[in-house]
């Protein structure tokens, strides 16, 4: 596909949330994941002509992202890697089969966020705001870090259930 077409730019820009989420899952380090996303974008741009219209853009993009994650892991110190080599390969293979999920989930997320009770929306907004952290929230609310972390986990779980239902029902 010609990289200069609006269609390619649309695919690339629309894929960003899902692509980042896919990278973060196999490279759970937010700074590194952002770096890899950017490297991936550049490669996608350079290799646009390799992409066949009509095939899954996300599947193609996540394959390239995986290559960049591998490169990044090689450069990282071993003690900074959360997953060992074997587990990384397992997760990356599994992730590759779910590439299109990321795209669908990204589209359903906003609706499900709107369904959350206001206090939960506020908590999520605080946690994911720039410089937001569970430690900061725990300090403000007089709760333990673990308690806030578990509350956030349950909210993410609720979002996941809502999104899965919408995806299954084709409500995107």
């Amino acid at each position, binding site marked *: 596909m010609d990289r200069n077409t609006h269609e390619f730019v649309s695919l690339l820009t629309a894929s960003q949330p899902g692509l*980042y989420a896919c990278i973060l899952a196999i490279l759970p380090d937010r700074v590194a994941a952002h770096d890899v996303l950017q490297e991936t974008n550049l490669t996608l741009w350079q290799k646009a002509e390799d992409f066949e219209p009509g095939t899954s853009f996300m599947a193609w993009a996540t394959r390239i992202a995986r290559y960049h994650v591998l490169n990044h892991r090689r450069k990282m110190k071993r003690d900074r890697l959360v997953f060992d080599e074997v587990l990384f390969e397992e997760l990356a293979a599994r992730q590759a089969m779910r590439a299109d999920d990321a795209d669908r*989930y990204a589209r359903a997320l906003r609706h499900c966020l709107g369904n959350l009770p206001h206090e939960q929306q506020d908590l999520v907004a605080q946690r994911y705001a720039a410089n937001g952290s569970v430690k900061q929230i725990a300090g403000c609310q007089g709760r333990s870090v673990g308690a806030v972390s578990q509350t956030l986990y349950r909210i*993410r779980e609720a979002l996941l259930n809502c999104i899965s239902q919408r995806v299954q029902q084709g409500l995107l």
Partner: protein
Amino acid sequence: MTDTQTASRSGHPDDDPSRATSLRELIARLSDGVLTEQEASRLNVLLKEDPIAQELYLDHMLIDGLLELEFSPAEAGFSSSIVNRELRDAKQEDRRRRWSAPSLQTAVLLIAVLTGGAIAGGWLSRVVATPSPSKSQRHPLALVDRGFESGTPLISAAPATSLWYGDLAEVVGPHSGITPLEGEWMLRFLKSESEPNDACELYQMVDLRPMSAAIATGQASVNASAFFNAIPDEARAEGHSFGVGLFAYAADPGQQRHIWPLRGTQPLSFSGRQEPADTDAWTWQQVAIRLALPADTTHLLVQVSAARLTPSTAEIPLELAGHFVDQVELVLATQD
């Protein structure tokens, strides 16, 4: 094989409540950036060769990553259609406060840009960024006519003769029930002037050479955001999207003679985001992105766009029914 591993292969993590709790706690702690080294080892053990636990983990991290992009404009792409009016108004108030007492540097720059335009007998065709960075880590970049408050139709197809250039657009006041987010004017996307016909895209070039020292560290990034709105009419049923894009270059791509600034011009790096237009004409929808700047970046191209989600079959580009953008902002973040 440990008891935990035995349990993990016997079924879903929920089958063993203590194990499931442990796995969830560890995933939550990883998500929240508080996982210790020992806990990471434990997470490896729990996930290894356990497809169900791995699916649970991947599901969770997928939501985690999507939430980060949804809420964190400073770090990544961002859109805030769920931000309510009160929050938006609070942000506006904050922005007004910031602009009511601009730094001397910003004031000097704004004056320089405005007087420079006047002396040239028109608007500057390039934006000059703030000079060498201050000690602050965030430096607003002066995007000329960021809120379209000049009220003049600046748009044309030729990059060298206008500030915003690209497809057909007009600067309007209140229009079809939509009022500008700030000030008296906003930009209305009209239609495409080049193939394909489905997107109306506007660009502005920012000269980053005055910031070269900060960018050369390889630690600088740019955050871009813009607010969008659309009238709720039948055309909305087709579905539209709004987008913001950033393209970093090692030379001025505007020197090339073409309407579409990317054609034949390889950017050093790229970041962009498109969001479906929401159905709420009462609130403005923000789309924001971040681009880490390669060390040799000298120019930055900012793109704002409105597009049909379903390609049009019409031979002649159709005019968009009422799609607007206001308050385009750029902030350079540096590691001082």
